[in-house]
């Protein structure tokens, strides 16, 4: 069998390109600063990437219908973790997003992303089997049934508080309903429902989250506090100009003007040091990456494989767009990492698992 029948080479090449950007940017962001050097984050991320490769291999090789079966236990497991975090957080009097297992910190909300993708795929693959004209107006099957478990999941994530992941789940759900049920009526109902929920959600937000959203409207309202990150990251991006300041020469990042530059704001490093040209290249790689996942979704004749791939596509698309838009100040600051670029163990592993599943679907698509 030919290699390109087994594995999507374009996808792998674009991934490798993105990973090169990731390593260069992380090295640049971390190499000098005393703040992080003690913890040697760069080496840690390399270990995470290695583990990610292993995870990718596992998800690539197993029979992905196991995931169909596993989706509900995985969902329950992540719900359990979320509740555990909630309880621990209560005990320790403060917000908590991670738990520690065998000395490794782990973010249940990242696991929840994986669970949400799989669960949605399970629901919608069953739904897809119903003939189109019958399922079209089936509000119960198409909307309410998948909404209930996901709503519970989203609620727990929201109260963590983790606005970013909540939005990921909400977006995934809307995306699936839109693309798979293709019912305007259903979509309208969901959207009006969400609009109705918004004031309630605003009330439940923590003060710092509200401030972030307010500052988004006018960063200069609090230039040294909440608006600081936005102003500084815009300066970092803009000052890269066409060709960038060069590797390790980005003053905004090297001199520590950008907080969280190795995680959510990693894109500022790319923009500042590699300029508009570098950004275009990176966005092109992301385009190829997304385009291939999309192609896989429509390549397979298996409903579950298609639904899973679409979920994976939606998840990455949302992350990439929201993260970069946030860095550019087009969207408010919510904690969403940039896939395969940001530092972070849990999300790296989840991203590689999702990619492994997509490649698995690609491999299997030849059999259907």
């Amino acid at each position: 069998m030919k290699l390109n029948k087994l594995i999507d080479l374009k996808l792998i090449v674009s991934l490798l390109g993105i990973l090169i950007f990731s390593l260069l940017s992380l090295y640049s962001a971390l190499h000098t600063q005393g703040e992080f050097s003690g913890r040697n984050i760069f080496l840690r991320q390399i270990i995470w990437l290695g583990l990610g490769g292993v995870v990718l291999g596992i998800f690539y090789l197993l029979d992905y219908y196991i995931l169909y079966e596993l989706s509900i236990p995985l969902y329950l497991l992540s719900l359990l973790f979320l509740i555990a975090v909630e309880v621990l957080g209560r005990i320790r009097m403060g917000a908590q997003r991670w738990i520690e297992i065998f000395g490794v910190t782990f973010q249940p909300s990242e696991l929840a992303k994986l669970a949400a993708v799989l669960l949605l795929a399970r629901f919608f693959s069953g739904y897809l089997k119903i003939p189109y004209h019958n399922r079209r107006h089936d509000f119960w099957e198409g909307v309410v049934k998948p909404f209930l478990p996901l709503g519970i999941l989203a609620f727990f994530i929201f109260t963590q508080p983790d606005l970013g992941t909540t939005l990921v789940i909400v977006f995934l759900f809307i995306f699936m309903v839109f693309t798979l049920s293709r019912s305007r009526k259903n979509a309208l109902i969901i959207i009006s429902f969400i609009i109705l929920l918004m004031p309630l959600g605003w009330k439940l937000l923590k003060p710092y989250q509200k401030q972030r959203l307010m500052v988004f409207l006018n960063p200069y309202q609090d230039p040294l506090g909440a608006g600081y990150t936005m102003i500084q990251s815009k300066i970092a991006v803009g000052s890269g100009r066409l060709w960038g300041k060069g590797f390790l020469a980005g003053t905004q990042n090297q001199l520590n003007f950008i907080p969280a530059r190795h995680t959510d704001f990693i894109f500022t490093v790319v923009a500042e040091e590699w300029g508009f040209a570098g950004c275009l290249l990176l966005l092109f790689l992301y385009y190829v990456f997304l385009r291939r996942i999309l192609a896989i979704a429509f390549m397979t004749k298996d409903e579950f494989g298609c639904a899973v791939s679409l979920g994976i596509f939606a998840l990455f698309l949302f992350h990439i767009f929201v993260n970069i838009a946030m860095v550019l100040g087009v969207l408010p600051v919510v904690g969403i990492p940039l896939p395969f670029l940001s530092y972070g163990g849990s999300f790296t592993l989840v991203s590689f698992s999702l990619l492994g599943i997509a490649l698995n679907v690609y491999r299997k698509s030849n059999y259907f």
Partner: protein
Amino acid sequence: MEERLKKLTIAVLLVLVIVLGYYQIVKGEYFFHKSRLNYLRIIPQKSLRGIIYDRHHQALVKNTLSFQACLFPHTPQRQKVLSALSRVLQVEKKILEDNFHKNIIAPFIPVPVYTFSSVDKAIGLEEKNIEGLIIKVVPQREVVSPFALAQVVGYVQSMPKALSYLRKYGFKTYQDFGISGLEAYYDDYLRGKEGGVQVEVNSRGEVRGVLGKVKPQKGKDLFTSLDLRMQDLAYRLLEEKRQRGVILLMDPYSGEIMVMVSYPSFNANRISDAGYFRRLRRNSGHPFLNRSLQGEYPPGSVFKPVVALAALEKKKVSLATKFFCDGTFNFKGTKYRCWSAHGWQSLLGALAVSCDIYFYNLGLRVGAEPIVYYARMLGLGALSGVDLPQERRGLLPSPAWKRHKRHQSWYKGDTINLSIGQGYLLVTPLQIARLMSVFANGGYLVRPHLVSKIESVSLGIKKEKLHLNPASLRWVGKGMRFVVSRENGTAHILEDLGLEIAGKTGTAQTSSGPSHGWFGGFFPYHNPKYVIVVFLENGKSSHNACILAKEFLKEAKDKGWLSNNETQ
């Protein structure tokens, strides 16, 4: 469906590309500039002020080292450091706290909170090893004779109040600025140029590296005509008597001032002590006043040479013209007195004994206008142009002035008062010195000055040839010589100094207490080299002024300071 989602992907990424293009291409230069402003800082470096020398190249003001306790603005243990400082330095903590807030310039520049000169205290602080405290060695301005030179040399302040309004426009500096005296007048020359180090800082303002450096430029040195030894002597004499007053010694040809002392004075080196400064400002003796050019007083009889000159120039009298003095002078029912009954007096004799009645007659014969004309010609009522700030011009009354300012006519009585230097007339001691030098140098009005050279550039001498008849100058000069040389001359006690002094005494009545005592003159009579003015505020009589002049000149002469002044 696939097509639609592909388009969605492209659209989403295109939005990002457009925004990126706007920031990086359209507004790229703007943000690039902003990022430079973010990390580039300039740390100012203080320049050394120029040194001020006297005529024998002896420093009057120099830069000595002192110690400065500093801390970084964001030191977490600030309160602890300040408490420790206030214990060791024995300063109130509140003062240190105030200084701290006043002196913050930028987050990466240590803030000076206290300056002191004691080495022991500096070592004590270093030994305590207080975390967060920085002891810097900084140049400190030190006046060599802080009392004798206080008003002449003046003092400096860092970022004085007068400039603090510039702070809100971003003008911040640690440079010292001259506030008074020569320090203020020649501030632009003395100050030098502030240097700076351009550094790269991180978001916390911590310095990450040095990018460039501009060395501070030392200010220019001033070479003055002052004679420190005689300056000290003059101050000592006034201080011993606790007598408010002025002693001036000047070169009549060039206008170079050798001695300029005003008492009471203050310690120019203690001016940064806020409590001391406040006490000085409340002091009724007005120690900040440089009386030699900022004090305005009636001249009394020292004005008589001007009247005599006017009379001779206008040919109203000859040397043989005599008036009779019997001690009183009746004019339109008012009695004007002379201090003695002098009998028949001619011009030179009347100058020698300072006969008022002779000058009443003379003044009436000459008239007010010519007297005012010649007084103005000799520099009264005008600024002398001395190189010190805030000079006063005195007051030279005239019929026009009286009508304009007082809305009254000029009476003959005013002329009588003016003839003996009383009435509205006010002069500064420096104006008298200038006036005397005209008789000494044969008709030139000089500009008195202290600084003769800045660094290596000599400043020219400014003098103005007056349209005066040399004969009349000579005759008045001779009259002034008689004041000292004749047995009955009012300043005869100066004769045994052997300096051939010519001059004029004055006892000026004033509404504010006892009379002022004046002596103004020049010597040696043949070939004058010095003009001297001694003025005693409320000094009771001119005799006291003569005694002081004698003590001063005697000691200066005995020490040989008067003969070898050409060494320069």
